[in-house]
């Protein structure tokens, strides 16, 4: 067991993007439970979201989950999500589209081109959003983190314990 853990571990962030301030505030409130461990960042537009992504990358943190509206002035949510793959630090982020106005075509586009992980339609329930983000963050740390165990108390503990068991993630010393 490592007794002396590196104190400056890189953090995994959550990014919320919506052009309506009240909506953004509501999302932030729902996801506040994660903020201690997974800093929640807010952006009012796709452009701002990109800026935040580069700050996240700049401090060597990573983007774990993005929750994004579709129809916004300027670039749409789906376009932003589709381009995440090439944004440093955001390549592996799980993608949630949270929208009321996405049409059939946009939704297909989001799934096929942006590799959407989850679609939530507005209005949404706080608990549901929390549950979805928790699942996706769990998947993210199981894929990307070298120490998924440390996230057991905030994320889906059963899923993490199962992975430790099946994949032999923790050494016996």
């Amino acid at each position, binding site marked *: *067991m*490592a*007794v*002396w*853990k*590196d*104190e400056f571990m890189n953090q995994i962030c959550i990014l919320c993007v919506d052009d309506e301030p009240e909506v953004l505030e509501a999302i932030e409130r729902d996801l506040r439970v994660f903020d201690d461990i997974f800093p929640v960042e807010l952006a009012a537009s796709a452009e701002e979201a990109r800026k935040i992504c580069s700050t996240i990358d700049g401090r060597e943190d990573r983007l774990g989950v993005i929750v994004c509206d579709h129809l916004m002035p300027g670039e749409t949510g789906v376009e932003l999500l589709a381009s995440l793959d090439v944004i440093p630090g955001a390549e592996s982020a799980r993608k949630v589209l949270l929208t009321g106005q996405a049409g059939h075509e946009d939704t297909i586009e989001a799934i096929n081109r942006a590799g959407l992980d989850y679609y939530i339609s507005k209005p949404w329930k706080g608990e549901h959003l929390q549950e979805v983000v928790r699942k996706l963050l769990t998947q993210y740390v199981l894929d990307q983190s070298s120490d998924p*165990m*440390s*996230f*057991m*108390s*905030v994320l889906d*503990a*059963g899923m993490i*314990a*199962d992975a*430790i*068991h*099946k*994949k*032999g*993630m*923790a*050494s*016996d*010393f």
Partner: protein
Amino acid sequence: MAFMPKIGMVLGLLGLLLPWWVSIDGLSSEGARTLGVFIFAAIFWMTEPVPIYATSLLVILLQVFTLSSAGFFQSETGGTLPPYGSFYASLASPIIVLFLGGFSLASAAVKVGLDLNLTRWLLRPFGQAPSAILFGLMLATAMLSAFMSNTATTAMMMTVILPMVSVLDKTDPFRKALALSVPFAANLGGIATPIGTPPNAIALAALNQLGVKISFTTWMLLAVPLVVVMLLICWQVLLKLFPPQSKTVSLKLDGKFATHHAALLTYLIFGGTVLLWVTEKLHGIPSSMVAFLPVALLPALNVLQKKEIRNFPWEVLWLVAGGISLGVSLKENGVADWMLTRVSMDALGPVGAMMGFCLLGYIVANLVSNTVSASILIPLVIGFASGIQMAEADLTRNVVLIGIIVSFSMTLPISTPPNAIGMSSGLIDTKDMMKAGLIVGLVGGLMLIACALFYWPLFL
């Protein structure tokens, strides 16, 4: 890098280079180099500037180049140094193969779901009363961790208890009992067999180097009664500290044993190997020979494939091998004897000194890896024993004692990986773990010493 690893890096390297600058009274130059490697290993293992299995590999590397007959230096005393192959041999020593056998069985068991289904089956007779379920969980955990990795067993059992915990009232102290029972039972269960946990391997390998063979059966005769008693004590301690509020606990125990081809083969090989292991004393086939049955048969029958083989915890074998190879040099070059002439322990007497080692082992193992504690302390014990010309049977008992005492260290989340998993669940506070772990550990330590003094002499 954090503070301790940095300090460890500097001190460890200084320790390694010490013999080149300072001539050490009473030690040949190869003895001094061995001492350097030992100090380096001890400090690196404890402070972890590099992962502990990497330290083990460095130990082998250093010995191959500085302490083998083909290395950079010749023996000063005119003797011959061991060939470098004898250091590599630690990577495939019988005890390592025994563990490899355990890994093969465990990997196949996980693949076909044997461990989980066995747990459910074992738990069925325990009904719905919280206290009975708690004991059932501990018994199942201990039985599995006796043959599989303590850590993997704990992780699996967490998936069994988390659904139970989620339906309990948030203020029910029993949640804590559940979350502590699994890691504690896994720590205890590891003691039960030679392959239960790596420190057992360190003890057995050290005894092998001394020419003492302990059969699988004998180890179990020594350890199983202790484990059973400690499970009962631990169960009662947890019930007293965290009494259940609800009258019943629901437990989902559905799930059937798989019956496909690979599953059936796994049951057969698992059952057969374990049976041959525990009956070693009756038929006399060494457990390390038996261990190669699953190693060879499971891949041959296509139960284990490349993917599973790559997923074996190879780093555990490397860690243990480093400890074993260090033993080669320590024994050859008279370092152990030398250490003990520097430290006067005669005043304590053999029993007093052993209690001292036990206490030291307990404390150190609470702070660093159990395997590392055993790897550092067992050579010291052997040195001490030869210093006071201890009888072989006493020495054997003392080595086993140190191999086991480290498994009683379960006070802190960092004490063992199972503790870390229990803690990560977020259900317990550090002080809960400290309170329960301290009681179980100290009672266990005393029971162990009592065993060593009064019960083990029947077999050793």
